[in-house]
């Protein structure tokens, strides 16, 4: 069995486990896991840019929200079907990431972080400004009647779980394939040594722009699914908080690993969930655990596993 096949088997096994969990989990955790899988898809998108290309964006909420509003407004204003609305969300993500990428990539390092942060703020304020359509901070609900995709009611928990799993599987397998192909390997080369990559004849700007578009599009798809599956579109998802979340998830799970985003999102979600059951000062517990993890597993959970036990993990 080649490395590539072995890795494919491992990752498909994880997806199979997620599939099987649906039949055994109690309702509460079942609902959580659906949400986690959509958010982990968002983290996968973020990881393409941060983990594999080495570009830290502080404005990914813009892409998440672009997908969510592209989807939501298509339903609210144009009464689009869920399938059309999802496509509208994803296309919005492609366009926005292409434009933002072309502009923001003119900056490097800290400047790139600041520029992406600022663009995301512009996105957030735009949502508020067009309150007439977006209902600003309050947001709007996607009615159950608008959430029936090809006769499948996505507000029903089992259907919702499978829809989330489908999205997550596609994102995971696409990125796994990507990092095993020359394109992904070139992104890693750019992360490791940009100048050397350029002097090997690679179009570094073109590759980075493509990475922003892949990353932004996956994030937008996650945003569109989130809005549709959970029936709500709101400006909170465009705030800076939602730009920081995927960074935390990816750092905890392991930057530049395929499974890191899922592990990190799962870990953080349940860390807050469990510690808030113990005390109302749950952020204190969460904070201490996060600090400990950063100290003792600086490469994140999957990153440490790779370092210690499984060198070839993509």
């Amino acid at each position, binding site marked *: 069995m080649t490395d590539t096949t072995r890795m494919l088997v491992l990752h498909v096994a994880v997806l199979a486990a997620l599939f099987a969990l649906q039949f055994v989990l109690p309702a509460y955790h079942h609902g959580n896991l659906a949400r986690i899988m959509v958010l982990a898809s968002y983290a996968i998108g973020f990881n393409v840019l941060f983990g594999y290309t080495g570009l830290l964006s502080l404005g990914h909420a813009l892409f998440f929200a672009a997908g969510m509003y592209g989807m939501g407004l298509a339903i609210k204003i144009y009464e689009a079907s869920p399938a059309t609305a999802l496509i509208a969300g994803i296309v919005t993500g492609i366009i926005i990431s292409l434009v933002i990428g072309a502009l923001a990539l003119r900056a490097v390092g800290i400047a790139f972080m600041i520029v992406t942060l600022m663009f995301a703020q512009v996105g957030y304020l735009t949502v508020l400004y067009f309150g007439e359509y977006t209902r600003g901070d309050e947001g709007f609900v996607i009615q159950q009647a608008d959430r029936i995709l090809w006769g499948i009611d996505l507000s029903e928990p089992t259907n919702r779980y499978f829809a989330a799993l489908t999205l997550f599987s596609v994102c995971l397998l696409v990125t796994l394939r990507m990092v095993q192909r020359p394109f992904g390997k070139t992104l890693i080369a750019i992360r490791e040594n940009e100048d*050397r*990559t350029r*002097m090997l*004849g690679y179009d*570094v700007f073109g590759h980075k722009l493509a990475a922003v578009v892949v990353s932004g599009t996956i994030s937008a798809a996650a945003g569109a699914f989130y809005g549709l599956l959970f029936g709500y579109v709101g400006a909170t998802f465009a705030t800076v908080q939602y730009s920081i979340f995927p960074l935390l998830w990816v750092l905890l799970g392991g930057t530049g690993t395929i499974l890191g985003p899922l592990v990190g999102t799962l870990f953080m979600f349940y860390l807050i969930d469990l510690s808030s059951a113990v005390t109302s000062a749950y952020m204190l517990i969460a904070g201490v655990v996060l600090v400990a993890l950063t100290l003792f597993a600086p490469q994140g959970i999957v990153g440490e596993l790779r370092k210690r036990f499984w060198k070839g993990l993509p």
Partner: protein
Amino acid sequence: MSLLSTRGLSKNFAGLQAVQNVDFDLPEGQIRALIGPNGAGKTTFVGMLCGRTTPSVGRVSFDGKDISHLPAHKRINLGMAYTFQITSVFANLSVEENVALAARRRLVGPEVTAHVQEALQKVDLQDRLDQRAGDLSYGHQRLLEIAMGLVQNPRLLILDEPTQGLADSEIEAFKDLIRGLVPQTTILLIEHNMSVVMQTADMVSVLNFGQILAEGTPAEIHANADVQAAYLGTG
């Protein structure tokens, strides 16, 4: 005919004239050494050839085409390869992946593996495929740089101080390797090691204070009084 030529090439860094008005011609199939004291502008000069440094004035042409306005990656794709003076391998990637990254510019699929093996064999690193490049000794990293240049099968190979940090036996092997590449590959060699220059180069150009001080065969350069005064210090 000249594979590479420059006309009036200059670079100023805030008042310092690093390279001044250089006219340079490199015929196809030649091994040309570029020598000169530290700070003579050698690295700046080759930086302008391959697009790492933007010239203040002047033109560069490659294979009869004006490439002055092409970005670095496009120049590389025309058939140039550049190895760095300060070792710049992908430290966190394997030796194999380092060379494969260079090979994938022109090859796909199984061909990549074959050419990677071949290039590593030429520099005697074939047993270290899976090793992390950053864990190699300095000398081996230099050899890896050279393998990354070779695997691109370039028409022009620019080597910036390739033998720095190599053991004597490795330097001997390097001389043979370089001589085996011509005339298919044209070589521009920046080198401090005089034995390498004398034994491999067909022609030598001497750069001093950003200007070409002399050009000639190794023997002519060795006998040139100006060069001795400026650089060799054996006058």
